[in-house]
Every structure is written in C-alpha cells, then in structure tokens.
C-alpha cells in the first residue's frame, strides 16, 4: 500500500528557530505539492514540483520559506526563521503527471507545527 510519508509528524519549536519538514513521495510519482492548513485560511498551496523542478511557489513567503527536491524520493520545506504565525499543519502530496489536470494528488499525514 504505497503512501506519502512525512517527518516529523509533530514539531514544537521556538520563534526564530529553523524548521525542516521532509516528504517522501509515492515511488514513481513525479509531482510533489506542499500545502498548509490553518483554521483561518483552510488549505493553501505553497509550492509545486514536477520532475524535481519547481513550477510554482507563488503561495510561499519567499523571505523565510524554501522548498527543494534534492532527489526524486525526497522533498523538503524549510522555514528560517520560524514565526508563531507559521503554526499550521503542513501537508505534502504527490501525483503522477501524465495529464496534469487528470492527475490525482495523494496526501501524506501532515506535519503539525507549533511555533512558540
């Protein structure tokens, strides 16, 4: 049963600290998405990769957030420095893009981040 995995599942940190979240997409998938979920904003897309290349990161605050795919099996989302308003659940999703619009995104379990 192939699944997207995310680590850590929970993270509590202090304001100003660096946070790194990791995602392992489903083997063979070539698209990766990072979403953030908050009560106020709901689910928002932060970044999107296809074949490891970033295609859209317009939803991401550029000054403190960065997203990378060092290889096809690992995607990372970093926040430096973290702020209390970054507290949220961060989801990674992956898909297989033959027809981008048809592709289904499968979500990981999320990383619940609390910045104090």
């Amino acid at each position, binding site marked *: 049963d192939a699944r997207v995995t995310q680590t850590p599942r929970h993270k509590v940190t202090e304001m100003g600290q660096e946070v790194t979240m990791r995602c392992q997409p489903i083997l063979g998938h070539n698209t990766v998405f990072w979403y953030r979920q908050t009560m106020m904003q709901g689910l928002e*897309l932060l970044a999107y990769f296809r074949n490891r290349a970033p295609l859209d990161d317009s939803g991401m605050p550029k000054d403190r957030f960065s997203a990378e795919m060092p290889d096809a099996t690992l995607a990372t989302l970093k926040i430096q420095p973290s702020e209390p308003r970054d507290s949220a659940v961060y989801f990674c999703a992956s898909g297989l893009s033959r027809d981008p619009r048809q592709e289904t995104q499968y979500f990981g379990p999320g990383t*619940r981040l609390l910045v104090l």
Partner: protein
Amino acid sequence: AQKVTQAQTEISVVEKEDVTLDCVYETRDTTYYLFWYKQPPSGELVFLIRRNSFDEQNEISGRYSWNFQKSTSSFNFTITASQVVDSAVYFCALKHAGNMLTFGGGTRLMVKP
C-alpha cells in the same frame, strides 16, 4: 478566478441517516476536474473521487454517491446509511488549467450513534 464553496460548515446526523454534502464551484475553464477528500480526526487527507468536467455520469461506490451537475456547477456527495466512522471533515476541490487544487472550506460531518 476559481472558487469552491461548501456552504455547510457543519452537519450533525444520527447513525443510519442519509446525508448530502454540497459543493458549488466556479471556473472559466471548459475542462477541469473535481475531487472529494476526507479528513478524519487523525488528520490525514484521504482521496475519495475524481470527476472530469465532460463526464456527468453519477457515481456510486458502496454507501457513497456523487451527483455532478454541470448546469448548476455542483458536485454533491451523499452518504447513505451514515456510520460513526464517517465522521470527518470533507473537502471538495477543483483542479483547472493551472494544475493547482483549489479547496473548499470543508464540511465537518458528525455522525452520532
């Protein structure tokens, strides 16, 4: 602009009742895809169904059924004979030319025994 509206923020039913979750969308694209995801209390997002804009056939999967009406831009989800395990937040989402998913605000379904 693309938009998904789930007007029901919270629904409470008693086990075995049927329940319909509404989803209305807006898009200028002629080709698009609609999705439903379930988010149980454990927090993960579980894919339920994908529908494309040129296939208006309704779909049934066990106790779940989906009614896609292009004329009213709606993609409603019905659970028949609801069970406690159906308690979750359900999200409707739209994927359009930009390949991004636009999510609705979600409907929290509580099924009481």
